[in-house]
């Protein structure tokens, strides 16, 4: 005969009781809850009313009627979205630009899947993806018309800068981190100086230096295009920050791991590649994703050194002619694009953090 109190757990509190406990425990709490609810509802209504209910959606409304309305004027997006997304890319070839963006998104999604988490697979995805992107954008082979980098623009250029920055910066950051923990004093101190100097400078000044100063210092045959110089600057900045993250991850690996590997007679290459880095990357993963998120947001800074990335093309989309009043719509559109990328990446990072916490508990 079983004890009934053991057999059935206490019933969970009803939803109403739960609600009361969470929001209306005391009069003050109730007042705060109601005030916040009111504020949130007011905000939500304001945004919805502007963006949906009283907005103008038709693609060919004239600016005057659009302006007279109370809500958003999405006509400007309908008429100018090609400029915002593709910049000055030739009209007939813009499908290539769109396809290239899809390639980048696919690349990012693939590298978020745990089954792709090995150095080789990740490298393959990123190198192949970037190559596909480059061929699509630049053309010149497979019967695609050649289109120079100065005509790239909009979202495609933003994504290209981001991808190229990561592709150069990430391996560089591993090299930096390994050099910084090297036992050779000249190397570890020298690279430490470089990393600290880069980290203490604003990214803008580094981009500016690479765009303007480097041509002074390099012989002509080494200069390359301005776009690639700026990407190198961004990659250096990324590497300096990421190197510190990886170094933190390496410090989190127990000393015994390396000592055990040494006592087994493993070479430096194997010690680092098979023992240290996999564990360090695991420690550093949340911070690494955060760093990717930050550097994606910071690609927008290249507008200052004169590139036609998505923000600049957005400025151009509303800055000329009859749409000068429609800055809110254009910025909302661009902000939505950034938000989608950044928010999903950072949610993914938070999910990973939880998932890994389960493993180590």
């Amino acid at each position, binding site marked *: 005969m079983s004890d009934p109190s053991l057999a059935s757990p206490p019933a969970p509190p009803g939803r109403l009781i739960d609600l009361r406990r*969470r*929001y209306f425990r005391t009069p003050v*709490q109730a007042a*705060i*809850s109601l005030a*916040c*609810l009111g*504020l*949130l509802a007011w*905000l939500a209504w304001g945004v919805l009313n502007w963006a949906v209910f009283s907005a103008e959606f038709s693609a060919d409304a004239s600016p005057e009627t659009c302006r007279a309305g109370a809500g958003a004027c999405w006509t400007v997006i309908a008429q100018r979205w090609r400029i915002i997304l593709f910049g000055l890319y030739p009209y007939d070839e813009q499908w290539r630009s769109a396809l290239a963006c899809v390639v980048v998104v696919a690349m990012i999604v693939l590298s978020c899947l745990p089954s792709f988490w090995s150095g080789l697979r990740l490298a393959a995805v990123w190198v192949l993806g970037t190559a596909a992107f480059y061929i699509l954008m630049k053309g010149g082979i497979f019967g695609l018309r050649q289109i120079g980098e100065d005509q790239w623009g909009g979202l495609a250029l933003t994504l290209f800068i981001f991808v190229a920055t990561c592709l150069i910066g990430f391996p560089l950051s591993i090299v930096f981190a390994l050099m910084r923990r090297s*036992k*050779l*004093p*000249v*190397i570890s101190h*020298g690279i430490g100086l470089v990393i600290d*100097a880069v980290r*203490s*400078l*604003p*990214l*803008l*000044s580094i981009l*500016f*230096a690479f765009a*303007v*100063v480097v041509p*002074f*210092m*390099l*012989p002509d045959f080494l200069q390359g295009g301005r776009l690639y110089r700026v990407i190198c600057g961004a990659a250096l900045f990324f590497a300096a920050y990421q190197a510190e993250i990886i170094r933190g991850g390496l410090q989190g690996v127990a000393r015994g791991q390396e000592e055990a590997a040494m006592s087994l007679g493993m070479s430096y290459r194997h010690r680092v590649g098979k023992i240290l880095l996999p564990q360090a990357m695991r420690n550093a993963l949340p911070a690494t994703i955060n760093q990717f998120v930050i550097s994606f*947001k*910071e690609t*927008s*800074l290249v*507008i*200052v050194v004169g590139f036609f990335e998505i*923000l600049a093309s957005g*400025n151009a989309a509303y800055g000329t002619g009859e749409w000068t*009043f429609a*800055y*809110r719509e254009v*910025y909302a559109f*661009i*902000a939505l694009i*950034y*938000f989608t990328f*950044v*928010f999903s990446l*950072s949610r993914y990072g938070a999910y990973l953090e939880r998932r890994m916490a389960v493993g180590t508990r």
Partner: protein
Amino acid sequence: MSNLWRNQKVRNLFLQGLFVAAVLLIVIGGWMNAQQTMQSQRMISGFGFLHKSTGWDVNFSLLPASANDPYWWFFVIGIVNTLFLGVLGLMLATFIGGLVGLARTSSNAMLQLLGRTYVDFFRNIPLILQVFFWYAFVTRLPSVRNAIEIGPMTLSSRGVYIPALNVGGWYLFAAALALVAAVVLPLWTRTTRRIDKPREERRGMVLAALFGSLALVLALLWLGRLPETPLIDVPQLQGLNMRGGLRVSPEFSALLIAIGIYGGAYIGEIVRGGFKAVGRGQTEAAHSLGLSPWQTFSRISLPLALRAMLPILANQYIWLIKATTMGIAIGFTDFFMIVAVTINQSGQTIEAIAILMAGFLAINLTIAAIFNRINKAIALKGNQLRS
């Protein structure tokens, strides 16, 4: 030969030598190439240009500036502008961040949701996009004639006009310093270990420090007031223009709003992290000792949380100061913009970049040093277990 390569000492020496050689190659090669380029453009390298007058003007300056001033003075102006914007932006961001962080750690789920919405929204949009948005917003305010008036403030497309004090520049500066002292001195007298008196008996000294500094502020303002004018100058519409008051340029207000809001979202997260780091046992113990919620917060949670968040806060402050360089995108004359225009006008590229680096290094190191000092001063003494 292969034996030599197997010798670890030789190998280490060789690797380090290789590294040094590579660095030297880059530096010397770059230097020589730069010299060559400069010579072909008939420019003189070196810092002699600092004493030449610039020939261009700045649109925002706290210090007197004209096109006849030398370059070094313009660099000083740039640093002062950057620091001014940076410090105001940090104060605004800290204020917003404190509110957001408190909302996110409160026990009220609705308030948490509100804080979370704020953080998620503003943190995930690039700062420069927000700067552009606010700049467009501020410059599209109604014209001066139809300006919006909020109390003594006037918002117009030409800038925000706020009441100003008719006080000489240096007196105003000294009064501002005295105002800072009015905050810092009482705190210091309350907490320092230099004064050999228990904290409970220091009340008189704290009050004396507070009121003494405040009296000094008033005295300085009174002494420095300009003759024949009211002390407070309220902006007023006269004809087509605004008279009196202080005009805050659209560039400045856009940057300030953007940095305050964006930084507030990040600092809110830091504040939340700080409170999360306070062990549950601490607050539970406080409750069980019968401390009221306010006492628990002000005596237990806040002091511990503050210590947990200070180091991260220092990094965030440095980041935000560096973010003021985005002013160049909308035309605010900060340090970076002065450097960029200098390069454009004088061609002294490498020297100007070196000055830029030195300037930011100095600012960053100063912030780091201040925070280290605070950190050390308030670090918990002893070795009790605190979790």
